[in-house]
């Protein structure tokens, strides 16, 4: 009798551990190519890591441009790839604002305000995120679509190019899922 109870308890425990959203974990889709939204996603990500959460960021579509390294160039791109490469921002410090962009005056104003108010810059937030083990995944399909290559992306610890199933597997077991 007691053996049965123990077995059942173990089975229930296993079910609890496998239920969706069971882990102290945050999964976020970073879709936007706007500076303001990237500041928000990084503040939430580093904050969550500070709260002891495992953090997964999945960069897709316009978001991927924020991960380009302005110092790196990729070779062997086709015509469309080169066009996209020229038109999309080269990295997180060239992103426009979603509102009040004013042909680039807006981002400059926000950055100077952030400095004045001692808010961590995107560079500092990425560094903190890397130190705290925030995981960055890039959507393979977005990169293919826009002709981006892994070798033009930033150096970030553990950065990986993956498909949507990888993100979903993480999202399913996360207690928080966000889309920015």
């Amino acid at each position, binding site marked *: 009798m007691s053996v049965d109870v123990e077995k059942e308890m173990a089975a229930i425990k296993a079910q609890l551990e496998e239920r969706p959203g069971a882990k102290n974990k945050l999964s976020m889709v970073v879709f936007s190519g706007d500076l303001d939204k990237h500041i928000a996603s990084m*503040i939430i990500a580093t904050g969550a890591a*500070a709260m002891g959460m495992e953090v997964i960021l999945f960069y897709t579509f316009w978001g991927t441009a924020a991960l380009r390294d302005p110092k790196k160039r990729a070779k062997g791109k086709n015509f469309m790839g080169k066009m996209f490469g020229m038109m999309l921002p080269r990295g997180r410090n060239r992103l426009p604002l979603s509102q009040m962009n004013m042909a680039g005056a807006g981002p400059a104003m926000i950055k100077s305000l952030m400095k004045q108010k*001692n*808010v*961590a810059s995107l560079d500092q937030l990425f560094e903190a995120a890397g130190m*705290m083990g925030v995981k960055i995944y890039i959507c393979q399909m977005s990169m293919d679509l826009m002709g981006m290559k892994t070798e033009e992306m930033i150096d970030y610890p553990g950065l990986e190019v993956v498909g949507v199933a990888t993100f979903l597997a993480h999202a399913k077991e996360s207690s928080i899922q966000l889309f920015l």
Partner: protein
Amino acid sequence: MAEHEAVKTLDYKGLACPMPVVRISQEIGKIGVGEVVEVHTTDPGSISDFPAWAKTTGHEVVEIKQEAGLIRIFVRRKK
């Protein structure tokens, strides 16, 4: 500063969200379990953020003292 017998004081003055909680999360492991650290901050968000951080991570905010131009937060490492 013998209150709560803080083993050290961390100066987070001038830092804005999310840096105070980012820093404390990295520092808390450097003191012993049961010991208290005193944090100095000027970020008003920390008054609600430190208790929220402590609740989630299992540590304890012993006391928050608001003085002119300075917020002092005493945090006990619980595990």
